[in-house]
């Protein structure tokens, strides 16, 4: 197949073999009793003006990925190259400055705002932290921001709890774009919102991306939303990337059995489409004790002996540099439903 290669934007963020292991402590002296392998060597690239989606179920490490990239957690190993600098290694001072250009939107729009501050104060905070502008300039900026995210100027004097969830998320977005970032990590930005509000926020995010050339790292458990938002998608399972592909392909032709199962499990709002279900048995194993070999082998319907012993590498699928799959049987073209 010689699909035309689309022109690609230059990379903005490259993550190379990033690992984040959390020690589990216990006892009087808080000795390390174990390790949670939240991220166990992930690599990917986010291109300018594009969205990279990360999907996966709870505990797969997607949230950790977002936070580690922003170095809200100090990574165990690996690199996060942003604007040519390795964020995992730069000194705190430079990091603080760099953070202006990478921001985050959180799942819970109420939790992520300081309830004691007015919207004005919340939005002023980024400028104050970085010592930018005088009061008049800041005021003007804040009003602009409010306008950008579709809120009234009068909202400035109100407190977060006086808003509905969707409006709060708008405030969160306004804060995230206040410093003109280039990258925004969106961590489940709509999953706490009511369905009728979700679309408003998604539209806003798209609009902002278009206007400002933003890149998003879009994290969600909702494959439909991720697919809608992203150019390419990473599917994670237990701290590992199992599949990485352009958004359309992942839906049309998922390769990894986990991806397939995930897609088949998503309930579709169409009662007439009674599909065959690929039901996965069992639960997600604990990231404290990931299975040996392929991490998915405990639930995989296609499991071979090899899968139990040997960990599959994330390799290009069928020579396509944009498609990577970590499965021993990826070349066999088996569909599990």
């Amino acid at each position: 197949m010689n699909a035309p290669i689309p022109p690609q934007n230059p990379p903005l963020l490259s993550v190379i073999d990033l690992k984040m292991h959390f020690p589990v402590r216990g006892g009087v002296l808080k000795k390390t009793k174990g390790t949670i392998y939240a991220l166990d060597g992930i690599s990917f690239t986010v291109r300018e003006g594009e969205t990279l989606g990360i999907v996966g179920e709870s505990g797969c490490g997607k949230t950790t990925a977002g936070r580690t990239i922003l170095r809200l957690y100090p990574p165990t190993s690996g690199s996060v190259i942003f604007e040519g600098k390795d964020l995992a290694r730069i000194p705190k001072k430079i990091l603080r400055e760099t953070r202006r250009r990478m921001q985050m939107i959180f799942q819970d729009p109420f939790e992520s705002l300081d309830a004691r501050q007015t919207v004005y104060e919340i939005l002023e905070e980024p400028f104050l932290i970085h010592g930018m502008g005088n009061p008049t300039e800041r005021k003007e900026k804040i009003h602009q921001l409010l306008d950008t995210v579709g809120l009234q100027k009068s909202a400035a004097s109100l407190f977060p709890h006086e808003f509905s969830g969707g409006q709060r998320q708008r405030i969160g977005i306004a804060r995230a774009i206040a410093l003109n970032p280039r990258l925004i990590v969106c961590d489940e930005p709509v999953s706490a919102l009511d369905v009728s509000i979700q679309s408003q926020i998604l539209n806003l995010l798209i609009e902002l991306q278009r206007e400002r050339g933003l890149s998003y790292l879009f994290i969600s458990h909702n494959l439909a939303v991720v697919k809608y938002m992203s150019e390419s998608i990473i599917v994670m399972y237990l701290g590992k990337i199992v599949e990485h592909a352009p958004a359309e392909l992942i839906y049309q032709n998922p390769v990894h059995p986990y991806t397939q199962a995930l897609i088949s499990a998503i309930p579709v709002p169409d009662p007439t489409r009674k599909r065959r279900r690929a039901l996965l048995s069992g639960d997600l194993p604990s990231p404290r004790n990931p299975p040996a070999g392929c991490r998915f082998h405990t639930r995989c319907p296609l499991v071979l002996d090899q899968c139990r012993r040997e960990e599959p590498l994330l390799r290009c699928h069928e020579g396509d540099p944009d498609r990577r799959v970590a499965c021993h049987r990826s070349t066999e073209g088996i569909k599990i439903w």
Partner: protein
Amino acid sequence: MTQAENSFLSIRNLVTAFDTEQGSLRAVEDISFSVERGRTLGIVGESGCGKSVTALSIIRLLPRPAGRIEGGKIWFQGTDILTLPPERLNEIRGNRISMIFQEPLTSLNPVQRIGAQIGEVMGIHFPRMTKEAIGNASLELMEKVGIPDPKRCVAAYPHQISGGMRQRVMIAIALACKPDLLIADEPTTALDVTIQAQILELMKDLQKKTGMAILFITHDLGVIAEVADQVIVMYAGKIVEEASVETLFKNPAHPYTQGLLSSIPRLDSPRKAPLTIIPGMVPSLSDMPAGCRFQNRCPVKIECCKTIPPQMTALSETHSAVCHLLTGRKISP
């Protein structure tokens, strides 16, 4: 006996209110519907629309003294639940009507073993069962809800098992007394999709086997599409549309239902194409507009929506909606 009294579960003109700092607010206002034996009725709506309150009203489990049922009738197999004395109520609760909740961890007693919790329910409702019989029945139940290695699970505490397993345990408890009606309030919302799929399958399967009726409450239209036979759409404490599941998804009549269906991105929707939106937000209970409650967000609002509350209009045998635009009109199936 009226038809309502005769039916399996029939709610008529239910009004439930809560005392808050803003005064008494009606979380559920004048809703009526019925559920048939062996069928699944889905109630769908956004947070705060009154769907959970409806469920709690049915088994009279409202928090006191803030919440109370102000009016209406709830007929369950010929008895009006609202007039039952408390001791009779307990015979129905858990025995003929069971309920499962969204967060299985908080619904289970954290310091009691799983086995004991299942056994306890049976002990309450079948006082004549021996300990051994209860133990065996528990194991059997757990097997039935698909818990692998039930013997180990019996001895475990709730926090030691996964969320999916906990929800299965909840279902096992709910099924312990072979209820005629199962009320499931967002039973899969806290679960991962792969687990959700398992639970949904399980519920459908169990319904087939036991013939119980299910009242399935969720905000997820996708889930509704999979499980429900009949669907009620609620908005701001009122029912706005009721239809069979096929009709609803194919021919949504109420602008709100239409908006909902078109605003969610689907796996096959084109990337980053602007989504249809329902503008604005749900009015708060303390600040309900006169007339139609959806008027501030409705794209097809007309003058009378502002002042006159619309009435339920039957569009077909199985389909009715509450909208001025539909008055006098029937949509052919």
